Protein backbone atom coordinates (compact mmCIF):
# COMPACT_ATOMS: atom_id res chain seq x y z
CA UNK A 1 0.00 0.00 0.00
CA UNK A 2 2.76 2.37 0.98
CA UNK A 3 4.61 1.65 -2.24
CA UNK A 4 1.47 2.22 -4.23
CA UNK A 5 0.88 5.57 -2.57
CA UNK A 6 4.47 6.52 -3.24
CA UNK A 7 4.13 5.46 -6.84
CA UNK A 8 0.93 7.44 -7.25
CA UNK A 9 2.57 10.49 -5.71
CA UNK A 10 5.51 10.19 -8.04
CA UNK A 11 3.12 9.71 -10.93
CA UNK A 12 1.08 12.78 -10.08
CA UNK A 13 4.24 14.81 -9.58
CA UNK A 14 5.68 13.59 -12.86
CA UNK A 15 2.48 14.40 -14.68
CA UNK A 16 2.31 17.86 -13.11
CA UNK A 17 5.93 18.41 -13.89
CA UNK A 18 5.43 17.25 -17.46
CA UNK A 19 2.80 19.90 -17.91
CA UNK A 20 4.93 22.43 -16.24
CA UNK A 21 8.40 21.80 -17.54
CA UNK A 22 7.31 21.57 -21.08
CA UNK A 23 6.39 25.20 -20.72
CA UNK A 24 8.49 26.58 -23.50
CA UNK A 25 9.83 23.45 -25.14
CA UNK A 26 9.13 23.00 -28.79
CA UNK A 27 9.89 20.67 -31.60
CA UNK A 28 11.45 23.38 -33.70
CA UNK A 29 14.97 24.28 -32.64
CA UNK A 30 15.99 27.43 -34.35
CA UNK A 31 18.84 29.86 -34.39
CA UNK A 32 18.86 33.21 -32.77
CA UNK A 33 17.63 35.79 -35.19
CA UNK A 34 18.61 38.41 -32.68
CA UNK A 35 22.04 39.93 -32.44
CA UNK A 36 23.67 39.69 -29.05
CA UNK A 37 25.31 42.70 -27.52
CA UNK A 38 28.76 42.55 -25.96
CA UNK A 39 27.77 44.34 -22.77
CA UNK A 40 25.96 42.69 -19.87
CA UNK A 41 22.27 43.54 -19.90
CA UNK A 42 21.36 45.42 -16.73
CA UNK A 43 18.54 43.49 -15.10
CA UNK A 44 16.84 44.14 -11.79
CA UNK A 45 16.51 41.05 -9.59
CA UNK A 46 12.82 40.31 -9.09
CA UNK A 47 13.16 39.52 -5.37
CA UNK A 48 15.54 38.39 -2.66
CA UNK A 49 16.31 34.72 -2.16
CA UNK A 50 14.36 34.77 1.12
CA UNK A 51 11.29 36.12 -0.65
CA UNK A 52 11.65 33.55 -3.42
CA UNK A 53 11.90 30.79 -0.82
CA UNK A 54 8.68 32.01 0.81
CA UNK A 55 6.91 31.82 -2.53
CA UNK A 56 8.35 28.39 -3.16
CA UNK A 57 7.04 27.06 0.13
CA UNK A 58 3.65 28.62 -0.40
CA UNK A 59 3.44 27.14 -3.88
CA UNK A 60 4.85 23.66 -3.44
CA UNK A 61 4.26 23.19 0.29
CA UNK A 62 6.23 20.20 1.51
CA UNK A 63 5.98 18.30 -1.78
CA UNK A 64 9.73 18.44 -2.30
CA UNK A 65 10.54 17.62 1.32
CA UNK A 66 8.29 14.60 1.04
CA UNK A 67 9.98 13.62 -2.18
CA UNK A 68 13.33 13.71 -0.41
CA UNK A 69 11.99 11.74 2.54
CA UNK A 70 11.01 8.90 0.30
CA UNK A 71 14.56 8.55 -0.82
CA UNK A 72 16.65 9.89 -3.67
CA UNK A 73 17.05 7.37 -6.51
CA UNK A 74 20.46 8.92 -7.23
CA UNK A 75 21.75 7.52 -3.94
CA UNK A 76 22.16 4.19 -5.72
CA UNK A 77 25.00 5.66 -7.75
CA UNK A 78 27.04 6.52 -4.66
CA UNK A 79 28.03 2.93 -3.87
CA UNK A 80 28.92 2.26 -7.48
CA UNK A 81 30.95 5.46 -7.54
CA UNK A 82 32.92 4.32 -4.52
CA UNK A 83 33.61 0.93 -6.15
CA UNK A 84 34.75 2.70 -9.31
CA UNK A 85 37.14 4.86 -7.29
CA UNK A 86 38.85 1.71 -6.00
CA UNK A 87 38.80 -0.16 -9.28
CA UNK A 88 42.08 -0.59 -11.17
CA UNK A 89 41.74 0.35 -14.84
CA UNK A 90 44.04 1.25 -17.74
CA UNK A 91 47.55 0.39 -18.85
CA UNK A 92 49.27 1.68 -15.70
CA UNK A 93 47.48 -0.64 -13.27
CA UNK A 94 46.14 2.20 -11.14
CA UNK A 95 42.85 3.27 -9.59
CA UNK A 96 41.81 6.67 -8.20
CA UNK A 97 42.68 5.15 -4.80
CA UNK A 98 46.32 4.68 -5.88
CA UNK A 99 46.82 8.45 -5.64
CA UNK A 100 43.94 9.64 -3.46
CA UNK A 101 43.78 6.98 -0.71
CA UNK A 102 41.34 4.15 -0.14
CA UNK A 103 37.85 5.19 -1.31
CA UNK A 104 39.62 8.36 -2.57
CA UNK A 105 39.08 9.88 0.90
CA UNK A 106 41.90 12.38 0.39
CA UNK A 107 39.62 14.15 -2.09
CA UNK A 108 37.39 15.35 0.73
CA UNK A 109 37.05 19.09 0.18
CA UNK A 110 38.26 18.97 -3.43
CA UNK A 111 34.81 19.69 -4.82
CA UNK A 112 34.68 23.03 -2.98
CA UNK A 113 37.21 24.59 -5.39
CA UNK A 114 35.80 23.24 -8.66
CA UNK A 115 35.46 24.41 -11.37
CA UNK A 116 38.85 26.14 -11.40
CA UNK A 117 41.49 27.42 -13.78
CA UNK A 118 43.89 24.74 -14.98
CA UNK A 119 47.26 25.77 -16.38
CA UNK A 120 47.75 22.73 -18.66
CA UNK A 121 44.26 23.10 -20.06
CA UNK A 122 44.58 26.91 -20.26
CA UNK A 123 40.93 26.87 -19.38
CA UNK A 124 38.40 25.84 -16.78
CA UNK A 125 38.62 22.39 -15.23
CA UNK A 126 35.38 20.80 -14.08
CA UNK A 127 34.97 17.64 -12.03
CA UNK A 128 34.01 15.31 -14.88
CA UNK A 129 36.84 16.68 -17.01
CA UNK A 130 39.30 16.21 -14.12
CA UNK A 131 38.26 12.58 -13.79
CA UNK A 132 38.84 11.99 -17.48
CA UNK A 133 42.17 13.84 -17.37
CA UNK A 134 43.33 11.61 -14.49
CA UNK A 135 42.23 8.52 -16.34
CA UNK A 136 44.09 9.48 -19.50
CA UNK A 137 47.25 10.99 -18.00
CA UNK A 138 47.73 9.05 -14.75
CA UNK A 139 46.04 5.75 -15.38
CA UNK A 140 46.36 5.14 -19.11
CA UNK A 141 42.63 4.54 -19.24
CA UNK A 142 40.00 5.68 -21.72
CA UNK A 143 37.94 8.75 -20.77
CA UNK A 144 34.42 8.06 -19.53
CA UNK A 145 31.67 9.30 -21.81
CA UNK A 146 29.99 12.40 -20.33
CA UNK A 147 26.60 11.68 -18.74
CA UNK A 148 27.34 7.95 -18.80
CA UNK A 149 26.43 6.02 -15.66
CA UNK A 150 30.06 5.51 -14.58
CA UNK A 151 31.03 9.12 -15.19
CA UNK A 152 28.06 10.41 -13.18
CA UNK A 153 28.61 7.86 -10.40
CA UNK A 154 32.29 8.77 -9.96
CA UNK A 155 31.69 12.52 -10.08
CA UNK A 156 28.81 12.21 -7.64
CA UNK A 157 30.67 9.99 -5.20
CA UNK A 158 33.79 12.14 -5.08
CA UNK A 159 31.80 15.36 -4.81
CA UNK A 160 29.74 13.81 -2.00
CA UNK A 161 32.95 13.58 0.06
CA UNK A 162 32.64 17.39 0.35
CA UNK A 163 28.99 17.38 1.40
CA UNK A 164 28.26 20.03 3.99
CA UNK A 165 31.33 22.08 3.04
CA UNK A 166 30.89 25.58 1.57
CA UNK A 167 31.68 26.23 -2.09
CA UNK A 168 34.70 28.56 -2.41
CA UNK A 169 35.50 28.82 -6.09
CA UNK A 170 38.15 31.33 -7.14
CA UNK A 171 37.84 33.69 -10.08
CA UNK A 172 41.15 35.48 -9.43
CA UNK A 173 44.06 35.77 -11.80
CA UNK A 174 43.93 33.63 -14.88
CA UNK A 175 40.40 32.42 -14.06
CA UNK A 176 39.03 35.95 -14.44
CA UNK A 177 38.52 36.07 -18.25
CA UNK A 178 36.75 32.70 -18.17
CA UNK A 179 34.48 33.92 -15.40
CA UNK A 180 33.70 36.98 -17.52
CA UNK A 181 32.86 34.76 -20.49
CA UNK A 182 30.59 32.64 -18.32
CA UNK A 183 28.83 35.73 -17.06
CA UNK A 184 28.38 37.00 -20.62
CA UNK A 185 26.82 33.67 -21.62
CA UNK A 186 24.49 33.84 -18.64
CA UNK A 187 23.25 37.27 -19.69
CA UNK A 188 23.28 36.77 -23.46
CA UNK A 189 19.92 36.70 -25.20
CA UNK A 190 19.78 33.65 -27.41
CA UNK A 191 17.47 31.31 -29.22
CA UNK A 192 14.27 31.92 -31.11
CA UNK A 193 12.48 33.05 -27.93
CA UNK A 194 15.18 35.65 -27.18
CA UNK A 195 15.64 34.66 -23.54
CA UNK A 196 18.79 34.64 -21.43
CA UNK A 197 19.50 32.56 -18.33
CA UNK A 198 19.48 35.74 -16.26
CA UNK A 199 16.19 37.10 -17.51
CA UNK A 200 14.47 34.07 -16.00
CA UNK A 201 16.65 33.27 -12.99
CA UNK A 202 17.38 36.89 -12.00
CA UNK A 203 14.66 39.18 -13.34
CA UNK A 204 11.74 36.75 -13.19
CA UNK A 205 12.78 34.39 -10.39
CA UNK A 206 9.75 33.71 -8.21
CA UNK A 207 7.30 34.21 -11.08
CA UNK A 208 5.43 31.40 -12.74
CA UNK A 209 6.09 30.26 -16.28
CA UNK A 210 2.81 28.42 -16.73
CA UNK A 211 2.55 26.38 -13.50
CA UNK A 212 6.31 26.35 -13.08
CA UNK A 213 7.88 28.55 -10.41
CA UNK A 214 11.17 29.92 -11.77
CA UNK A 215 13.99 29.54 -9.26
CA UNK A 216 16.39 32.14 -7.95
CA UNK A 217 19.90 31.16 -9.05
CA UNK A 218 21.24 30.76 -5.53
CA UNK A 219 21.74 27.03 -4.84
CA UNK A 220 21.80 26.21 -8.57
CA UNK A 221 25.26 24.63 -8.55
CA UNK A 222 25.49 22.96 -5.13
CA UNK A 223 23.61 19.69 -5.71
CA UNK A 224 24.63 18.20 -9.08
CA UNK A 225 24.83 15.48 -10.30
CA UNK A 226 21.32 14.87 -9.09
CA UNK A 227 18.12 13.05 -9.80
CA UNK A 228 15.40 14.73 -11.78
CA UNK A 229 11.87 13.38 -11.92
CA UNK A 230 11.36 14.68 -15.42
CA UNK A 231 14.41 12.77 -16.64
CA UNK A 232 13.57 9.80 -14.43
CA UNK A 233 17.34 9.65 -14.25
CA UNK A 234 20.41 11.16 -12.70
CA UNK A 235 22.16 13.91 -14.63
CA UNK A 236 24.66 16.73 -14.40
CA UNK A 237 24.40 20.50 -14.09
CA UNK A 238 25.37 20.76 -17.75
CA UNK A 239 22.46 18.51 -18.68
CA UNK A 240 20.27 21.07 -16.88
CA UNK A 241 21.87 23.86 -18.95
CA UNK A 242 21.00 21.97 -22.09
CA UNK A 243 17.43 21.48 -20.90
CA UNK A 244 16.91 25.20 -20.39
CA UNK A 245 18.64 25.99 -23.70
CA UNK A 246 16.29 23.62 -25.50
CA UNK A 247 13.33 25.39 -23.94
CA UNK A 248 14.84 28.65 -25.15
CA UNK A 249 14.95 27.13 -28.66
CA UNK A 250 18.65 27.93 -28.71
CA UNK A 251 21.59 26.05 -30.21
CA UNK A 252 23.23 23.63 -27.80
CA UNK A 253 26.89 22.81 -27.32
CA UNK A 254 28.39 19.44 -26.39
CA UNK A 255 29.00 18.49 -22.76
CA UNK A 256 32.17 19.99 -21.28
CA UNK A 257 32.52 22.47 -24.15
CA UNK A 258 34.47 25.60 -23.17
CA UNK A 259 31.23 27.57 -23.13
CA UNK A 260 29.54 25.27 -20.62
CA UNK A 261 32.65 25.04 -18.41
CA UNK A 262 32.88 28.84 -18.24
CA UNK A 263 29.16 29.05 -17.53
CA UNK A 264 29.55 26.46 -14.77
CA UNK A 265 32.38 28.53 -13.25
CA UNK A 266 30.21 31.65 -13.26
CA UNK A 267 27.21 29.91 -11.74
CA UNK A 268 29.26 28.07 -9.11
CA UNK A 269 31.11 31.24 -8.16
CA UNK A 270 27.87 33.11 -7.50
CA UNK A 271 26.93 30.15 -5.25
CA UNK A 272 30.09 30.55 -3.13
CA UNK A 273 29.21 29.89 0.50
CA UNK A 274 26.37 27.49 -0.34
CA UNK A 275 26.97 24.05 1.17
CA UNK A 276 27.61 21.16 -1.20
CA UNK A 277 24.76 18.64 -1.06
CA UNK A 278 25.25 15.92 -3.63
CA UNK A 279 23.19 14.19 -4.99
CA UNK A 280 20.32 16.63 -5.25
CA UNK A 281 16.77 15.80 -6.19
CA UNK A 282 14.55 18.02 -8.27
CA UNK A 283 11.24 17.90 -10.09
Amino acid at each position, binding site marked *: MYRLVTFLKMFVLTAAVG*LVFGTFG*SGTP*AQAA*TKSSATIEQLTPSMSYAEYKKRYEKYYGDATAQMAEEGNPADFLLDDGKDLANKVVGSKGKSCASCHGKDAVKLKGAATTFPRYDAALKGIMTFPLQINTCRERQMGAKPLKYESYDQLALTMYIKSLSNGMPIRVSIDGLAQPFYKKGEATYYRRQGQLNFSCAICHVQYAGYK*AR*ANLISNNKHHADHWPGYRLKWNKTGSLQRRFRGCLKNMRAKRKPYESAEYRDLELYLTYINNGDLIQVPGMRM
Partner: protein
Amino acid sequence: MSVMDTARTKGHLLWAGAAIFFMVAAIPVWAHAGNAKEGRKIVITKKLGNCIACHYLPNVESPGNIGPNLVKAMQAYSMADRADVTQWVRDARKFNPHTIMPPFGANKILTPQQIDDAVAYLYTLKKQ
Protein backbone atom coordinates in the same frame (compact mmCIF):
# COMPACT_ATOMS: atom_id res chain seq x y z
CA MET B 1 -49.23 52.56 -54.57
CA SER B 2 -51.01 51.22 -51.56
CA VAL B 3 -50.14 52.00 -47.97
CA MET B 4 -48.90 48.44 -47.69
CA ASP B 5 -46.46 48.88 -50.57
CA THR B 6 -45.00 52.04 -49.11
CA ALA B 7 -44.44 50.34 -45.82
CA ARG B 8 -42.74 47.42 -47.54
CA THR B 9 -40.43 49.71 -49.52
CA LYS B 10 -39.51 51.55 -46.36
CA GLY B 11 -38.78 48.18 -44.73
CA HIS B 12 -36.46 47.17 -47.59
CA LEU B 13 -34.68 50.49 -47.47
CA LEU B 14 -34.18 50.10 -43.77
CA TRP B 15 -32.70 46.64 -44.23
CA ALA B 16 -30.43 47.77 -47.04
CA GLY B 17 -29.29 50.72 -44.94
CA ALA B 18 -28.56 48.50 -41.98
CA ALA B 19 -26.61 46.05 -44.16
CA ILE B 20 -24.50 48.83 -45.66
CA PHE B 21 -23.91 50.31 -42.22
CA PHE B 22 -22.63 47.03 -40.82
CA MET B 23 -20.48 46.32 -43.86
CA VAL B 24 -18.79 49.69 -43.57
CA ALA B 25 -18.38 49.32 -39.81
CA ALA B 26 -16.75 45.93 -40.31
CA ILE B 27 -14.14 47.14 -42.83
CA PRO B 28 -11.34 47.76 -40.33
CA VAL B 29 -11.85 44.24 -39.00
CA TRP B 30 -11.85 42.72 -42.48
CA ALA B 31 -8.73 44.60 -43.39
CA HIS B 32 -6.83 42.64 -40.72
CA ALA B 33 -8.72 39.43 -41.36
CA GLY B 34 -7.85 37.94 -37.99
CA ASN B 35 -9.71 34.79 -37.08
CA ALA B 36 -10.42 34.84 -33.35
CA LYS B 37 -11.17 31.12 -33.20
CA GLU B 38 -7.77 30.29 -34.70
CA GLY B 39 -6.28 32.93 -32.43
CA ARG B 40 -7.55 31.18 -29.32
CA LYS B 41 -5.82 28.00 -30.50
CA ILE B 42 -2.59 29.92 -31.12
CA VAL B 43 -2.45 31.59 -27.71
CA ILE B 44 -3.00 28.35 -25.76
CA THR B 45 -0.90 25.94 -27.83
CA LYS B 46 2.62 25.31 -26.58
CA LYS B 47 4.19 24.96 -30.00
CA LEU B 48 2.47 28.08 -31.33
CA GLY B 49 2.07 31.26 -29.23
CA ASN B 50 2.07 29.66 -25.78
CA CYS B 51 1.06 33.08 -24.43
CA ILE B 52 -0.40 31.37 -21.35
CA ALA B 53 3.11 30.46 -20.23
CA CYS B 54 3.35 34.10 -19.12
CA HIS B 55 -0.12 35.66 -19.32
CA TYR B 56 -3.45 35.09 -17.63
CA LEU B 57 -6.08 34.22 -20.23
CA PRO B 58 -9.56 32.88 -19.43
CA ASN B 59 -10.36 29.17 -19.30
CA VAL B 60 -6.86 27.74 -19.20
CA GLU B 61 -5.28 25.65 -16.49
CA SER B 62 -2.47 27.34 -14.49
CA PRO B 63 -1.55 30.29 -16.69
CA GLY B 64 1.79 31.92 -15.81
CA ASN B 65 2.16 35.33 -14.15
CA ILE B 66 5.29 36.72 -15.79
CA GLY B 67 3.32 39.11 -18.00
CA PRO B 68 0.20 41.19 -17.34
CA ASN B 69 -3.29 39.69 -17.22
CA LEU B 70 -4.39 40.10 -20.83
CA VAL B 71 -8.11 40.39 -20.06
CA LYS B 72 -7.34 43.42 -17.90
CA ALA B 73 -4.75 44.76 -20.33
CA MET B 74 -7.14 44.58 -23.29
CA GLN B 75 -9.73 46.82 -21.58
CA ALA B 76 -7.33 49.72 -22.16
CA TYR B 77 -7.16 49.20 -25.91
CA SER B 78 -9.75 50.30 -28.48
CA MET B 79 -9.99 49.13 -32.09
CA ALA B 80 -7.91 52.17 -33.01
CA ASP B 81 -4.98 50.70 -31.03
CA ARG B 82 -4.95 47.51 -33.03
CA ALA B 83 -1.57 48.33 -34.58
CA ASP B 84 -0.03 48.71 -31.12
CA VAL B 85 -1.45 45.45 -29.85
CA THR B 86 -0.13 43.75 -33.00
CA GLN B 87 3.27 45.36 -32.43
CA TRP B 88 3.39 43.94 -28.90
CA VAL B 89 3.03 40.46 -30.31
CA ARG B 90 5.23 41.03 -33.36
CA ASP B 91 8.15 42.50 -31.42
CA ALA B 92 7.63 43.88 -27.90
CA ARG B 93 11.19 45.28 -27.85
CA LYS B 94 9.82 48.34 -29.59
CA PHE B 95 8.06 49.24 -26.31
CA ASN B 96 10.53 47.70 -23.86
CA PRO B 97 14.05 46.80 -25.02
CA HIS B 98 14.50 44.55 -21.95
CA THR B 99 11.26 42.68 -22.39
CA ILE B 100 11.10 38.95 -21.77
CA MET B 101 8.25 38.65 -24.26
CA PRO B 102 9.49 36.68 -27.29
CA PRO B 103 9.50 38.59 -30.60
CA PHE B 104 6.90 36.37 -32.26
CA GLY B 105 6.99 38.18 -35.60
CA ALA B 106 10.63 39.28 -35.80
CA ASN B 107 11.92 35.79 -34.89
CA LYS B 108 9.33 34.05 -37.05
CA ILE B 109 7.78 32.12 -34.20
CA LEU B 110 4.36 32.98 -35.65
CA THR B 111 3.35 34.04 -39.17
CA PRO B 112 1.76 37.49 -39.73
CA GLN B 113 -1.58 35.71 -40.21
CA GLN B 114 -1.21 33.86 -36.93
CA ILE B 115 -0.36 37.12 -35.17
CA ASP B 116 -3.48 38.75 -36.66
CA ASP B 117 -5.50 35.77 -35.45
CA ALA B 118 -4.04 36.04 -31.94
CA VAL B 119 -4.84 39.77 -31.88
CA ALA B 120 -8.39 39.09 -33.13
CA TYR B 121 -8.79 36.71 -30.20
CA LEU B 122 -7.39 39.28 -27.75
CA TYR B 123 -10.09 41.75 -28.90
CA THR B 124 -12.82 39.25 -27.99
CA LEU B 125 -11.63 39.66 -24.37
CA LYS B 126 -12.79 43.31 -24.30
CA LYS B 127 -15.83 43.61 -22.07
CA GLN B 128 -18.66 45.38 -23.94
